[in-house]
């Protein structure tokens, strides 16, 4: 047990290997494929860093999968908003085009998430801790200090990571929220930051596959990003059948982001098609 920001002791689970995923975005087809993959790779526990809803066609189909696979979930900004019935997703967009699509997605997600599942979302913790061998792992959605802070690879300095890790008594920081995976070892491998990316939306790399992270403890922390192919055509057709924007289906089919682009820093934006 350890404490975090206060005197309430929190549970720290101990593992040899964990699978960590983020950004499900109501993509039940992708989530099912990813969870099956984690089983094949001998992960002792599966963690999800939040944002279960948004974007995809079947919000309520995500929850049974998470329960069936005993996934330990951290609350994302989307989950927080859906649980509270907030006016918007608090995604942090400033751009009117991004906000247009975000509003459509959010309204659809709220309308298609049952009261039971919304109540469950309200119970999710804001962070989780684990131990992987000697490594103290801190898991959150955006950043340890703000649920909707974007930790992009090209805008997250080493100095900030060191400070966040020190402030939260951790050696390994795991996050999501951006939808793009990256990892960085600090101080000769004494500390690590890993953005696990998203399983609900492809990587903006021109392939429809999605990614999650596999972490194995030991004297050296092993981090492996795993790509998973899934029936993205079925997911895209489901979006179309629900009358959701065709740009969303296009993203699933092509692997290129068509929306939520304006928050991308120059480096990450340059890698995509749009």
């Amino acid at each position, binding site marked *: 047990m350890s404490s975090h920001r206060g005197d309430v002791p929190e549970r720290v689970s101990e593992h040899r290997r964990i699978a960590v995923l983020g950004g499900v975005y109501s993509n039940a087809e992708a989530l099912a494929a990813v969870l099956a993959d984690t089983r094949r790779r001998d992960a002792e526990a599966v963690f999800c860093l939040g944002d279960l809803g948004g974007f995809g066609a079947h919000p309520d189909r995500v929850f049974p999968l998470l329960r069936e696979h005993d996934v330990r979930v951290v609350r994302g900004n989307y989950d927080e908003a859906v649980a509270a019935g907030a006016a918007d997703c608090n995604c*942090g*967009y*400033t*751009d*009117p*085009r991004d906000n247009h699509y975000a509003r459509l997605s959010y309204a659809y997600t709220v309308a298609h998430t049952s009261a039971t599942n919304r109540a469950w979302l309200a119970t999710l913790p804001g962070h989780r801790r684990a131990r992987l061998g000697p490594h103290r792992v801190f898991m959150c959605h955006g950043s340890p*200090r703000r649920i909707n802070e*974007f930790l*992009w690879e*090209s*805008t*997250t*300095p*080493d*100095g*900030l990571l*060191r*400070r*966040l890790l020190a402030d939260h008594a951790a050696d390994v920081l795991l996050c999501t929220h951006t939808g793009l995976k990256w990892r960085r070892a600090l101080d000769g491998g004494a500390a690590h930051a890993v953005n696990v990316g998203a399983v609900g939306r492809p990587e903006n790399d021109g392939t429809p596959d999605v990614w999650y992270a596999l972490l194995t403890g030991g004297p050296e922390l092993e981090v492996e990003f795993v790509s998973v192919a899934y029936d993205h055509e079925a997911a895209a057709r489901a979006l179309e059948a629900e009358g959701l924007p065709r740009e969303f289906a296009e993203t699933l089919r092509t692997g290129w982001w068509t929306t939520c*682009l*304006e*928050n991308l*820093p*120059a*480096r*990450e*934006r*340059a890698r*995509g098609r*749009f």
Partner: protein
Amino acid sequence: MPAIPPGVADAPRAPFVTLSALWLVLTGTLCNLRCTHCLNASGPDEPWLAPLDGAVARRALTEAEALGVREVYFTGGEPFLHREILPLLETSLAMAATTVLTNGTVMTDALAGALAALAGASRYSLEIRVSLDAAEAEANDRVRGRGTWERALRTLRTLDARGLLPIVTATEIADGAGAYDRFRALLRGLGIAKPRVKILPVFPVGRAAGAPGVRLTDADLEGFDRTTLQCAETRVVAADGVYACPILAGLPGARLSDGALAAALGPAALYHEACATCHRTGATCRNA
């Protein structure tokens, strides 16, 4: 030091949460343009806020890195008029993502090439924000000066050709509703495949200051999370001290310390009319 204006002592405060963004007012108010709405009344005359000494800027960067800063902004005036901008950018990009706010009228091919080289050598993003005020030349030039639209567009094309993906930063002063779509169309028309546009409100400060207007009170902020204000996570280093807000830099009521960042990490007074605009619009001076 000029006297503290009335109302500062009694103004509501924004807490300091963390140093997320460091701004350097690199050229003070020295600028080659004299825009009608300029937030700090910059221009080509003797600047009322002096340019930042390179050594002071480097010291601020070092201090900010130790405080875990997330991103750095270079502003002015026109920051590309600072003789040390390239070495300072190199220093900044070695530690964090860095943005330069420019009027886009002093860019050359050689400078764009140097910027591209710096961006390519850094792990962190270099962002160039180019100011425009309308998607049409005439409306823009009424605000920013004759010929500025053409020159800024040339800069946008030059930067885009170098892969630097500039962000057009505009205010609502000339273009009003629908400005965002018009700017996107303008950029696409220039052949820019990844148009990036940021729209800001006009703040009642500098040349856009009018008659004394509404100021915030503690009652206005009841139930409002003050930690969401930009000034809760921002510090601004100018030649005469440290501030919490880039558009209030140089104003005596906004000064938090005379020099060191570490001495400026306390609450900030929300005393200015511009604070009410920021609160009302939820605007962010950061890129996103």
